[in-house]
């Protein structure tokens, strides 16, 4: 398949992890993220109701501690899972896969990303399923 990578950002713009950069590529709004050293690019459209998901919070997944018998003990923010949270309805996606945590039938359009030197590049023709 022919690749069509386009420059969208510089590596130096992602010194702070989880801080996204919103870019427009060929008229498509895309959020670019760096998580644990790896880059991700998602279309800025929530699979639930079409909200601007990439304008939402990026944070540890809010989890609930449960007792041995399944009772709720209180909430905590996960150190392991990172969620991209749509600002419209609070639907949460795994930022490393684009798949919704609550309903795996929902997922974000994810595009191939590569790094060449200082340049971060995205290929809209290569959607990662």
């Amino acid at each position: 398949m022919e690749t069509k990578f386009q420059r969208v950002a510089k590596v130096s713009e992602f010194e702070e992890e989880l801080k996204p950069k919103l870019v427009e590529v060929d008229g498509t709004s895309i959020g670019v993220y760096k998580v644990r050293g790896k880059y991700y690019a998602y279309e800025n459209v929530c699979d639930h109701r079409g909200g601007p998901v990439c304008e939402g919070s990026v944070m540890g997944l809010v989890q609930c501690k449960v007792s041995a018998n399944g009772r709720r003990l209180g909430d905590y923010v996960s150190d392991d899972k990172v969620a991209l949270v749509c600002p419209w309805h609070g639907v949460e996606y795994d930022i490393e896969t684009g798949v919704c945590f609550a309903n795996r039938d929902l997922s974000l359009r994810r595009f191939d990303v590569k790094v060449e030197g200082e340049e971060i590049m995205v290929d809209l023709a290569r959607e990662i399923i």
Partner: protein
Amino acid sequence: MDNAVRQAEERGLHDMFIVDADCHLMEPFSVIAGKMEKRFRDIFFSPTMDQDPFFSSRIGVDERKFKAYDPAMNIRYKNRRKRTELTYPKPQTAEELVDLFTSRMLDFGIKRSIVFPTKMLDIGMDPRADFEVALTNAYADFMLENFLGRYPEILSPVFVPANSPDKAAELIERVGAEKGIVGVMVTSMTRALAGDDSWDPIYEAAEKKGLPFCMHCANFNSGILGGFDSFLGVHTLARPISAAAQVTSMIVSGVPERFPRLKFAIIEGGLSWIPWLMQRLDSVYLMRREEAPLLKKLPSEYMKEFYYTSQPLEYASNEDLQYVFHKINAENHLLFASDYPHWDFDLPSVIYDLPFLSEDAKRKILGENARKLFKIS
């Protein structure tokens, strides 16, 4: 809200007559209280007067649990979400509300907004009946002075004190013919059920004025739902359960037969409970018909003549939604509603994008059904 504006442009929604049959304002109680007698004004004089004067609605409720129920109060919820423009607004000024409903909603393709209050939806369980009468009258005056009849985009049913049916009828008589008033409204949380004979003055007055009777669903956290310590549990059940109880009451006591010219709309209960109730009511009616002697047809046939608003349109497969739409005669009796600006709002695309609807059905659900029901010009 760029995505919402884009959705409207991509789908050509600006060329359609879209009516939002249920959206909300945050009541500026400081203004509304000014229209009430001093003894009622004093109820508002607390540090939270613009937030929640209805403390009585929480009597007997565990405050810790209450906080878990209310999304606006839930710390976890606030942290998870980042809303730039869309949020539970603070009490809005009249100017802000005019801008919202005459400008911003138009950007989403919505030409007419039928506006409901927010905090006042709790008033139906307030034990102070005279306060309910005073507040609903003051709210009607606030709406008429600032919006109704002044801006064609803003419409509203008159919110009546359901616990004082004679006073409710007086209010309908007083303002029911005013421009911009398009219905009569109560909430689903009331001390008597809607089929109780005591409610007849409300139905008579609404029928006389040619106004549809609208029941806006409300949350509750008492009885069996008082056991939940999550908003998820309460919100899943409270509105459809209260709507189901009120609709059952109305039908079993024959309200549609007693007021044959009156039209009924159930607001903000979602849709998935309706086929369930139709099937169950019909089944029990077969065995205990004599307890509903006024009925001339199956309960589900009356329910099919009711109108329902679409929000919150439960997220489901198209196959499941198609079944629900078929059961409720959605093409002719479903009204699009956004519930803007509340946390589980819907945009017109939730209807427009459904693949099993014809273009004609979409137009009807998004606006024409409401235009007919509420006599909107």
